[in-house]
Each structure stands twice: as structure tokens, then as C-alpha cells.
């Protein structure tokens, strides 16, 4: 039987990019128009994914005295020495040129007399945080510019298209299978080179400031191919997102008040609790320290009504707040949220904040061109691990997407040009995928996909947040195992239509979410120390003697295996350490 008889539609493209936002969009733009490029997203380009949520800054070394070397050093210290130093060094060298490249695509950076304005961010020794105006729009501007630039360059786009599996033949990635969510049709997309740019997996947590789409599909696809992933135990939490009122849940821009306006954090009893966790830097400590402190307060019964802490600027004279806000957030507009119109007067009252899952430091092991060890497949952006080590500094996400998106795009052109023609995928593999991915339609009763999704999110939230110990991790792993064995095979659809069947998408995503949840849990269990974003109650100290290692997750004979690999301190060694960034500051 031929592929055409199994799939509903067969497409051939030189380069296929999975994911359309910062990493994928930039990779596609870099590859086009040199070769024929197709981008696919399970959402809608420019209106889905996490790039648009990047409200804050874009780091690049433009300040007087700043250098790529200083940037690199800060990244390694912030990453607690677990970074892939080669990737971090490339990031530091190339971040600045991506700022000007994005400007060419239409991003309007804040500038004065021809120089980029930059904000000082925690963990950076210089002010590197480039931004757009009004403040809070950096991600939005980037997504808009990419939509425009991709269309100028004739990059083709399929929205509402969920990639299910990567097709491999004779040790080479030859394309993917996908589902057109609008019709339920199965597509086979043959490609000379496929780029995974699927982003992070924040959606495995109940409280997250990612997006609905961030279910970690790319981690799972790579894992199922037997490719190694690294550092999956390190999930960064945005320390202070609004949690009340409900309609503003997840707003991140307020976090900046900590360092822009000396906002204080108070617990239920009005105590400025950071004195106990980080007496020198207080609320200006790096995000892992602040996130952990708030969680600890909640855990020990000193949290606010809705499970967080108060953020307060009302202790400042009204005149000071008004003047500062007039400059930073004219009209009290926090990235589209007009606080006063929403009935929140920060001059008068504190408001409630809590951490939210924000970024995955871990991901697929890849080199500086996105090569992952399977010919024909590249990966770039958040789906790749290593750049940020155990913790990412603020403003360092977007430049990673650009730097490595551009590189992957260029490498994809070389690969596509080397290939003479398209390789026909194995019909048996396509048949097997079709049977497996459509099996859910034959089940008439069982468990709803949304229930399972919410259960995974709750398990992760309760047990694998910023605060972990052996008991919570084991508990999470047991529940994940139970969901995988008992519930996943019983998922069913309450509606048999193939036309935008959201429950079907949720069922497909649940499988990826379980893989991601298990990777985080298993790695977190092995790492018996606290480092960067990974904190264990039972091992609260950073232990350089035993744990300067990266944990590598891999599927072997259907089982998840974790290997320890010594971290390579090729350029920046422990002697560079800055005590101010230590975990127990």
C-alpha cells in the first residue's frame, strides 16, 4: 500500500518547521526564500504560543563596558555551571546582531539618540534588557514582525495542524505525520529537513504563564525517537504573577515593580518575608529565590487568601508612585492591563501574586546548529536544553530563539540542498501511526481527555513545583504512572466529529504531557541537591562535589533511563562564582 492510500493528503517541502513563533518563525525566515519552506502550528501563527507572552526584555550587550564575555560569564553563574558553555558562548556573541535583525523585520525597540535603551535585570552585571514601547509589548511586536516577514518571503503556513510523529527511514528523518485539526484529515509531510521549534512544556503545570499550546510535544517526539534530553528537572517559575482577581490571573508585567519601583513582598501577616530568605538582595533576588520564598510562605501557612503573597508599592508616597508609573507604565497600563480601570489602585493597596511555571531550561541535546544526532532533524529554541543551565536569567529567552532559530534555518538550507529528492516514508510506519492516533474514535465510553489533562496539571502543581522532596516526587511519579497505564488507554471522545475535535487534540497532547511530567519527576528525584530552579527540601544545599553533572533522559527499550554526565566547565569555572547569586544567599 502506498503512502497516498493511507494518508488523506501528502505534501512535499524542502524544509518543514514545526512551530511558528520566535524560534520557528525565525528559522523559517532564515531558510526562505533560498528553499521551499513550510511552517506548521497546532494553533494560529502570531496568536498562539509563548513568544507573545514575553512581556519583558530581550538581553544583548550594548551598554558601555559590556561585552559578550561578561554576558557569557553571567549566564554560567546564573545557570549554576550546568550550561552547555559552547551554546552559551554563541548566544552571548550573537544576541546583539539579532536585535538589529529583528529591527529590520519591523520591531520598534526603545531607543535614544540611536542607542538601544536597556533595563537592568537581576543576575546581569550590565543593563542588557532591550524592550519595546509601551513596556510589556516586546513579545507581541516580535510575533507581529515575524508574521509579516515570513509572508514577505513566501514562507507557507499551515495553522491548526498538529504534528503527531516524526517519520524515520534508514536512520534519517524524512518528514512527519500530522492532523489537520479543521478536517481531521491525516497529512504526511515529506521534508528534506525538519526543524522542531515546539517550545516548552509549562502547560503540564496547573499554574503557568505559558500558553495552552505549551504541552511539550517536541520533547515527547524526540524522546520517542530515542534522542537524549538534558536538564529536564530545571523548570523556571516566574516569581510574581498576579493571581487575583481571576480575570487578571497570570499577568506578569507587575513582576517588574520589584526592581523598577522597589515593590515589597508581604505575607499574610504583613511581614516582609524576604528578610529571611535573601537579606541582601531582598525582593530583587533572582527569580528562583523569590519564587521559592513565596511558595515556602504559602506552604507554612502564611500565604494570602488566594495562595500567594502581597506585592506592595503603597508604602511609597503616592507622588513617587505616580511619577514613576507615568514614566514606566503611562496610564497605569501594564502591557494592556489598565490597572486603574480594572479597579486596582496600586497606590492604595497591595495585590496578590504567586509563582507560575514560566520556562523550561531543559530540553533536547543539540549542537550549535540544532543538530540532534538524527540526520534530517534539527531543533531550536526552548525545546533545546543547555543554553541556560540550571536557571535562565531574565531577558535571555527571546535572544535564544533568534540566535539558534537563525542558525537552524541556515543549516536546514544546506541540508535540503544536499538532498537530491524526497525519501518515501515507510508505509508500514504511517499505517501504524494512523491506527494508533485514530484509535480513540472507536471507543464509546471511558475518561474524558480534559479530565486527564487537569489531573496531570494538578499532580505537577502539588508535587513538582519550586519546592520538592523525595516524598512529593515519588508521589507524583506514582500518579503519573497510574494515569499512563490506567487512564490513557481509556480516553474517549464525547463527540465523533473530526471537524476541530478539541477533545481529540487534548488526548494527543495528554500523551506528550505525561512524557514531560515523567522526565521532570525522574530527573528531579535523581538530583539529590538544590541548584538553580531545582530546590529540594531534603537536600537544600548546592553540592558541587557530587552534582556538577547534567542528567540525560532517554528512552531505552520502552523505559525512561537517566544517565549522569559530568558538566563541562570548558571556559568559566567555579572560581568565577559570585556569592550574591548563591542559592542560600
Amino acid at each position, binding site marked *: 500500500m502506498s503512502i497516498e492510500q493511507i494518508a488523506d493528503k501528502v505534501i512535499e517541502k524542502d524544509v518543514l518547521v514545526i512551530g511558528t513563533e520566535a524560534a520557528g518563525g525565525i528559522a523559517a525566515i532564515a531558510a526562505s526564500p533560498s528553499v521551499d519552506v513550510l511552517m506548521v502550528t497546532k*494553533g*494560529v*501563527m502570531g*496568536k*498562539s*504560543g509563548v513568544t*507573545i*507572552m514575553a*512581556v519583558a526584555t530581550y538581553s544583548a550587550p550594548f551598554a558601555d563596558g559590556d561585552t559578550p564575555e561578561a554576558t557569557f560569564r553571567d549566564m554560567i553563574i546564573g545557570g549554576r555551571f550546568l550550561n552547555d558553555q559552547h551554546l552559551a558562548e554563541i548566544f552571548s556573541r550573537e544576541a546583539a546582531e539579532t536585535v538589529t535583525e529583528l529591527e529590520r523585520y519591523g520591531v520598534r525597540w526603545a531607543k535614544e539618540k540611536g542607542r538601544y535603551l536597556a533595563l537592568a535585570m537581576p543576575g546581569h552585571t550590565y543593563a542588557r534588557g532591550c524592550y519595546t514601547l509601551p513596556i510589556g509589548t516586546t*513579545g*507581541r511586536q516580535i510575533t507581529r514582525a515575524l508574521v509579516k516577514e515570513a509572508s514577505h518571503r513566501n514562507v507557507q*503556513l499551515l*495553522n*491548526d495542524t498538529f504534528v503527531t510523529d516524526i517519520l524515520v527511514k534508514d536512520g534519517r528523518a524524512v518528514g512527519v505525520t500530522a492532523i489537520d485539526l*479543521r*478536517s481531521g484529515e491525516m497529512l504526511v509531510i515529506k521534508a528534506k529537513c525538519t526543524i522542531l521549534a515546539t517550545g516548552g512544556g509549562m502547560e503540564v503545570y496547573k499554574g503557568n*504563564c505559558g*500558553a*495552552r*499550546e505549551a504541552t511539550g510535544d517536541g520533547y515527547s517526539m524526540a524522546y520517542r525517537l530515542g534522542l537524549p534530553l538534558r536538564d529536564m528537572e530545571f523548570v523556571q517559575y516566574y516569581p510574581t504573577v498576579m493571581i487575583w*482577581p*481571576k*480575570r*487578571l*490571573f*497570570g*499577568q*506578569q508585567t507587575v513582576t517588574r515593580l520589584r526592581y523598577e519601583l522597589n515593590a515589597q513582598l508581604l505575607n499574610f501577616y504583613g511581614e516582609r518575608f524576604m528578610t529571611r530568605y535573601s537579606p541582601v538582595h531582598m525582593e530583587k533576588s533572582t527569580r528562583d529565590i523569590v519564587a521559592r520564598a513565596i511558595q515556602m510562605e504559602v506552604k507554612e501557612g502564611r500565604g494570602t487568601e488566594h495562595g500567594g503573597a502581597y506585592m506592595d508599592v503603597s508604602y511609597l508616597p503616592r507622588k513617587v508612585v505616580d511619577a514613576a508609573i507615568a514614566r514606566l507604565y503611562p496610564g497605569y497600563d501594564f*502591557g*494592556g*492591563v489598565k490597572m486603574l480601570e480594572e479597579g486596582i489602585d496600586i497606590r492604595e493597596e497591595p495585590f496578590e501574586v504567586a509563582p507560575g511555571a514560566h520556562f523550561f531550561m531543559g530540553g533536547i541535546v543539540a549542537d550549535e546548529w540544532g543538530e540532534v544526532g538524527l540526520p534530517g532533524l534539527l531543533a531550536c529554541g526552548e525545546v533545546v536544553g543547555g543554553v541556560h543551565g540550571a536557571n535562565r536569567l531574565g531577558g535571555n529567552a527571546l535572544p535564544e530563539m533568534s540566535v539558534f532559530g537563525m542558525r537552524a534555518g541556515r543549516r536546514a538550507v544546506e541540508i535540503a540542498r544536499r538532498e537530491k529528492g524526497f525519501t518515501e516514508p515507510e508505509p508500514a510506519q504511517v499505517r501504524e501511526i494512523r491506527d494508533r492516533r485514530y484509535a480513540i474514535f472507536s471507543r464509546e465510553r471511558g475518561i*474524558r481527555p*480534559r479530565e486527564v489533562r487537569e489531573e496531570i496539571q494538578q499532580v505537577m502543581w502539588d508535587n513538582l513545583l519550586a519546592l520538592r522532596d523525595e516524598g512529593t516526587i515519588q508521589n507524583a511519579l506514582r500518579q503519573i504512572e497510574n494515569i499512563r497505564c490506567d487512564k490513557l488507554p481509556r480516553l474517549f471522545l*464525547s*463527540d465523533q*466529529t*473530526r*471537524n*476541530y*475535535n*478539541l*477533545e481529540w487534540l487534548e488526548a494527543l497532547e495528554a500523551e506528550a504531557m505525561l512524557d514531560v511530567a515523567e522526565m521532570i519527576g525522574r530527573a528531579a528525584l535523581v538530583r539529590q541537591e538544590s541548584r538553580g530552579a531545582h530546590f529540594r527540601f531534603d537536600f537544600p544545599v548546592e553540592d558541587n562535589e557530587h552534582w556538577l553533572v547534567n542528567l540525560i533522559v532517554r528512552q531505552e527499550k520502552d523505559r525512561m533511563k537517566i544517565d549522569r554526565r559530568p558538566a563541562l566547565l570548558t571556559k568559566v569555572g567555579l572560581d568565577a562564582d559570585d556569592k550574591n547569586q548563591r542559592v542560600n544567599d
Partner: protein
Amino acid sequence: MSEEDLNITIKVFRFDPSMDPKPRYDSFTIPYDEEETILGILKRIVRDHDPSLVFRESCRIGNCSLCSMKVNGKGVLACRKPMKDFGKMDLVIEPLHQDKVIRDLVCLME
């Protein structure tokens, strides 16, 4: 009557072009909660009444505009619009563009 006892009727546009000859409206009764958002209402309907209802959401904080839809004839971002903005009136929820419906409240966005 206390606010907890107040119920609101939500009429939701339903249409599956692959099966239905024409659109219809389904009604659901939901307790009034002034802080609940339109997106929250839809999730509640899916959970408690009809899991087959589909709609779009992504960022959930008013950034991406993927959850744009019409409520009582007015375009809103479902994730940011609280129930209280409509008083205690019954609500009609419809897709942003009825001529571009893929299914229910999901429209072509490009």
C-alpha cells in the same frame, strides 16, 4: 435573593459544518459569579454540561486575541471579560465571524 442564588442563561452558537445543515443555539444555566470570565463560563459548560463545545484559547491574559468572540453582539476577549461587565443579563455567545466558522466558536483566523 442573594447573589449565590442567581442563575444566568447562556445561549451559545453551535455549528459543525461537516454535519449540521445550519447553526443552532444551545442554552445553559450557569450560576452568576461577577468575577467569572467568558472563557471561564465556556470551560464550565464543557466540564459540567457539554464536553463537545469547542472554542479557541491560548495566552489567557489578553495578549494573543485568539479567544476573540462576540458576547451580546459585541467583540470581546473571552479571557479578560468578566460576567459583571454585562450586568446580570442573560448572555449570547457567538463566533467573531459567522461566515468563517470551523466549528462552534472556532473561526478561521488568518
